[in-house]
């Protein structure tokens, strides 16, 4: 079957294109006014305030909302070279926990990274965004250490969000032991390591060298 046939193509988000159009419209209107101000050096104060203050503010606010949404996409995470081996591993079904979930569609392919790394609830989303800003700073400064590792332990709420109420999860003997439950909830142990395979294989955490130009 052709992987590019319409049946296998993600339907996409109909809302997102409209969301991208709105900030662009405000931005272009403000750009026109600023361009006139650059040439003439002066404009009516109301027009100037619209072009330098209000329209750009609205455009940037809407642009931030669009960026918040688009930064959840797997393509966004893997647009950094250091993430490429992780993407290849996840798509290869190599036995790692991440590839297991991606291959079986138990996490949405378009947001596979964000689904597991965003924690639980609104605070989880916010901490994921803050972590994203830190990632961008490290990328700017090329200051990330290899192999990649989490600064704190993996938040198992990402696992429990889907698994906690399933019968198959509750039927596992080890999940019913009170000491193990307490250790998990106290973050003294994680789902991976002792019991389940690592989310990403060690070789995928070594980053990738950027392709050299001609």
């Amino acid at each position: 079957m052709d992987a590019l046939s319409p049946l296998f193509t993600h339907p996409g988000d109909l809302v997102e294109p409209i969301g991208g159009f709105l900030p662009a419209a405000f931005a272009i209107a403000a750009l026109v006014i600023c361009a006139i101000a650059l040439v003439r050096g002066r404009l009516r104060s109301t027009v100037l305030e619209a072009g330098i203050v209000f329209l750009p503010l609205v455009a940037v606010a809407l642009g931030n909302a669009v960026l918040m949404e688009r930064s959840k996409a797997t393509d966004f995470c893997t647009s950094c070279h250091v993430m490429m081996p992780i993407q290849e591993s996840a798509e290869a079904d190599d036995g790692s926990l991440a590839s297991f979930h991606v291959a079986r569609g138990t996490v949405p392919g378009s947001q596979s990274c964000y689904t597991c790394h965003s924690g639980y609830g609104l605070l989880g989303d916010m901490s994921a965004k803050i972590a994203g800003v830190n990632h961008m700073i490290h990328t700017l400064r090329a200051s990330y250490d290899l192999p990649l590792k989490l600064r704190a332990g993996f938040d198992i709420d990402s696992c429990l969000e889907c698994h906690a109420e399933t019968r198959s999860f509750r039927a596992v003997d080890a999940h019913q032991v009170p000491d193990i439950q307490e250790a998990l909830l106290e973050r003294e142990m994680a789902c991976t390591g002792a019991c389940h395979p690592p989310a990403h294989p060690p070789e995928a955490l070594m980053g990738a060298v950027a392709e050299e130009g001609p």
Partner: protein
Amino acid sequence: MIRVAALLVVVSLMSLLAMLADTHAGTAIAFAFLGMPALGLGMAVYAYHIWRPVRMTKDEQSLYRLAFDTLRARDFVDLLTLGTWEASDAGDTLIRRGDPGDVIRVLLSGAVSFRVEGTEVGTVGPGQLVGASFVVEESVAWGDGVVTENALYFAWPVASLRRALEKKPALRAAIQAIVSRDLAEKVRTLSQGNSTEPS
């Protein structure tokens, strides 16, 4: 300063459009770490341009209080950029009959006597305008203005003043009110038996 603010906002919006066109880590970094600070800086520059403190020299402050206190201080300072301070000694002829009405002056100190065919018709003192009617209509001087006391005054080219006022209707109305007040005072002085400038 408006150009600087506009340029910073253009940089910010260009980074936003690049991010919207193709969102990846690079464009997101450009938008977050370049575009947004540029927008903040541009707005700060514009805010400073709007709210910067008005500074006047002592002479400018005196002139403002004498004749232009109905204007906003910032508008007055903007008008000052169109003209120059000048001085004349007693005995100098400031304006001759038939001269084109291309300069309007306002006295800060001194006095100017106006004569028509040798007959004195009035004097102008501090805070009063020389050539007030030139703002209202294109005309020529119909008397001679001779400095009787050393005079310090501010002079505006009428053409520059008219061009600036065309773009600011509210300011134009305020200046016309000042001119009208000056002319009315001269007419009142004339009707009370004191001669006044024939403008």
